């Protein structure tokens, strides 16, 4: 696994750059990850990210946009507003989680 430096810290990532060790993530890192892809985190981003982290800890899988809506309570439209164009991948990236595997 490649190691890269984000916000002055060394973290393990996959070939694409998604973090592979959820334990290396914390909230200050999230802000740096978000900034790297041009997103400034608001309270609503944080609520979503905290849901993703908690859900991953429970399920062992990254929530899809469908699950973020039905279980996390953030409507699809809002997900697209918070993480434009490619919400599923961008949310996972900022939350330091693997890309979601689910199709829906």
């Amino acid at each position, binding site marked *: 696994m*490649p190691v*890269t*430096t*984000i*916000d*002055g810290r060394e973290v393990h*990532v996959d*070939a*694409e*750059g*998604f973090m592979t060790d959820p334990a290396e993530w914390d909230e200050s890192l999230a802000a*740096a*990850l978000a*900034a*790297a*892809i041009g997103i400034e985190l608001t309270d609503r981003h944080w609520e979503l990210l905290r849901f993703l982290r908690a859900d991953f800890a429970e399920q062992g899988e990254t929530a899809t*946009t*469908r*699950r973020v*809506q*039905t279980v996390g309570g953030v*409507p*699809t*439209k809002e997900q*697209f507003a918070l993480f*434009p*164009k*490619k*919400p*599923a*991948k*961008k949310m996972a*990236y900022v939350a330091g989680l693997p890309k979601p595997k*689910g*199709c*829906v």
Partner: protein
Amino acid sequence: MTVPEIRPSFDDDATEGRKLAIICSKGNLDMAYPGLILGNAALGEGVETHLFFTFWGFDMITRSRMDDLKFTPVGNTATHMPMGLTPLPGMTTMATRQMRRSLAELDIPPVRDFLEQIVAAGGHLWACRLSADMNKLTEADLYEEVEGIISASDFIELTEGAQLLFI
């Protein structure tokens, strides 16, 4: 702030201008899903997506039918049932119930909810003019998020340059 050296390339600009047109021509429960799943996936990748509902696919957006699509093993060898058994009474009802259950277990939404999600993700739904005329249906009979009843030429025109899927 250090910028990560390895960072996913989300390629937002590369997707700019990419379009997908999906023609949904089937009204069976099982054949409703490929278009919905692929359309939803395309939207999640930032691709402008248009779905055109025509012929039997019209059932997917007809209010009185969209919640009641069915799956039948009749004539479908991929179910691996003895074909002589498939037309027995109750078989379609049973197969439909089974399929709905399998989809729900995977949190795949019912057709109406799926269309709602597609629209929320920025997708466009279009109804076929000829299908509406043949079935004597108007916009009032259709799912409220359908943007319009349009002709085949209109659809071809508005999906200029799009990649196309016929289902």
